């Protein structure tokens, strides 16, 4: 188990290194004009060079890369260049992460509780009315672009129920609509996958044996089906927990929530390299770490993986 975890951790670190390096190098391929901001026309060539030199962009690429990693290992994410000039990136993020995180966790809990309950209900009523009704919902959420129905939720949600249109952190009521909007997709996903895994399990032979043993349907559902169906689902749970920190770009901008969503787009369009780099670091480590935790969780739940001699073979 320890060997398996260490091996997986090593894989994760290598992946992270590759992503960071690639993004760093790709950023260097961008045209330099972006770095001068609005003043570009007024600057003399000498001034332009001075700016590039100050940003370290005139060094050979491997020196730049080395400097970047040295800085990173000291725990320094650098300062923003164009988004908010010379403000430390940690400071920018520290102000935004709490909002995204709070919304993310709340949305996650909601989508887990409602989504899993819905999935169980669907599996139990497979092929009947309720299953079809919830399936319609799942298909709708997956097929219709979020931009369409989220807009309608905001429009009718605020006009019919008189809930506030914009986010106000001192007003609990203003949390309701963004929270629902953020959860709809997660609920649909959780419900769909849990239903699928449960139906898979229900068709297996060991369920027949459990019935022949004289277990009640309810006991079989809880002790055998749900537990086994939860294993494949568990693999993706940590990743979705961690991704909640990154926030929802669209919903945050709809309700003017000062979260982290959307920051990456802004940073890239304004060529704020250090900020982009920092965000890529956060996003990719969250994703990779999430998958790593998923693998570990899966190994804890499934004895067949735990005892596999070639731990990282999958």
């Amino acid at each position: 188990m320890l060997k398996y975890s260490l091996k997986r951790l090593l894989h994760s670190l290598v992946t992270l290194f590759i992503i960071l390096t690639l993004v760093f190098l790709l950023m260097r391929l961008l045209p330099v004009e972006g770095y001068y901001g609005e003043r570009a026309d007024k600057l003399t060539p000498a001034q332009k060079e001075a700016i590039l030199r100050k940003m370290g962009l005139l060094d050979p690429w491997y020196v730049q890369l080395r400097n970047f990693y040295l800085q990173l290992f000291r725990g320094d994410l650098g300062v923003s260049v164009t988004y908010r000039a010379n403000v430390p990136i940690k400071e920018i993020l520290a102000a935004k992460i709490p909002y995204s995180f709070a919304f993310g966790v709340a949305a996650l809990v909601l989508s887990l509780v409602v989504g899993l309950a819905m999935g169980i209900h669907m599996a139990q009523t497979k092929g009947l009315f309720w299953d079809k009704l919830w399936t319609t919902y799942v298909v709708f959420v997956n097929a219709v672009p979020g931009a369409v129905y989220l807009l309608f939720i905001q429009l009718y949600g605020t006009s019919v129920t008189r809930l506030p249109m914009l986010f106000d952190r001192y007003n609990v009521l203003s949390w309701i609509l963004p929270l629902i909007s953020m959860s709809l997709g997660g609920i649909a996903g959780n419900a769909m996958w849990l239903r699928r895994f449960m139906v898979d399990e229900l068709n297996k032979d060991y369920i027949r044996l459990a019935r022949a043993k004289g277990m009640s349907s309810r006991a079989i559902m809880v002790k055998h089906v749900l537990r086994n169906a939860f294993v494949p689902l568990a693999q993706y749970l940590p990743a979705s927990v961690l991704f909640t920190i990154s926030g929802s770009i669209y919903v945050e901008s709809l309700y003017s929530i000062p979260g982290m969503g959307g920051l990456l787009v802004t940073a890239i369009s304004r060529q704020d390299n250090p900020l982009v780099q920092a965000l890529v670091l956060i996003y990719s480590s969250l994703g990779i770490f999430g998958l790593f935790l998923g693998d570990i969780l899966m190994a804890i739940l499934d004895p067949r993986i735990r005892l596999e001699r070639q731990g990282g073979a999958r």
Partner: protein
Amino acid sequence: MSEPVLSARDVVIKFRLRGQTLTAIRGASLDLYEGESVAIVGESGSGKSVFTKSWIGMLDANGWVDSGSILFEGKDLARYKTEEEWLTIRGKKIAMVFQDPMTALNPLRTVGMQIQETLELHQGLRGGEAKRRTIEILAQVGISEPEMRYRQYPHEFSGGMRQRVVIAIAIACNPRILICDEPTTSLDVTIQAQILELIRRLQKELKVTLVYITHDLGVVANVADRVAVMYAGEIIEYGTVEEIFYDARHPYTWALLSSLPQLGIKGQPLYSIRGTPPNLFNEIHGDAFAPRNPQALKIDFVKRPPFFQVSPTHYAKTWLLDPRAPKVEPPEIVKAMRARYERYAV
């Protein structure tokens, strides 16, 4: 003979499939007596499994017992509808072992827990007591180092070992009837023999009534006291092992016996029964086997034969036993088997 443990009478089982109704069991009757071992033989689709599954209420959701009765301990199981009713029987009074042991156990729970579950369910044993009993049962089905095996998962067991565990689950609560539905079909031959021996030993030790479903006549001779032959959803002949092997009366039983590979006879092509079993979606008139029987009588296509008694323990559903029927000789292979039997056995 004494009172039967279970008495199934004229059981009709139907399934609804794509808007059509299929009659899988067309009036099957069978009595089981205390401590005996009965084999039910027949080809795939003859209804062997469905018939026995109806005794523990495990028909698929689209199937139901349409008529007939299944008397067990003074109750008619054919009338059982709710899960609560069935839970008083399943696993407790009548247990079942299925065909494929590789997939029959939950891969995520320890073997011990899966046996213990049954004990806790039906015998109210708890904790250490339940564990001790589980380890005893593991040892009883021939698993060595039961304490260590108790904690292991199914993937650490071979196919034969898993079937032993499945059998352990079935016998955990000392059921009165143990149904084994082709328990050795998916195992290799040496393991088959071991499992057969285990089942026979347990049957004697526990004095349980054994119902053994198979399409392998070789196994039948090994395991059963009595044999019931099934065809197209009804039992067409039953008798003791000797009576069925050496004095069969139904043309279908003859055909089955003829298709057994004969040891010591070279150069003969293997016999196979022509045609296919009837379509159970259609109503069947007369003897269901008549269309495949080259020696079928006219009445076989018109009227369903009743059971004719051959001996107090041997009955067959064929018009050939009617006193008015012409004399029809069994096939050569069957006659040869009978001749050999008479020469050696008597």
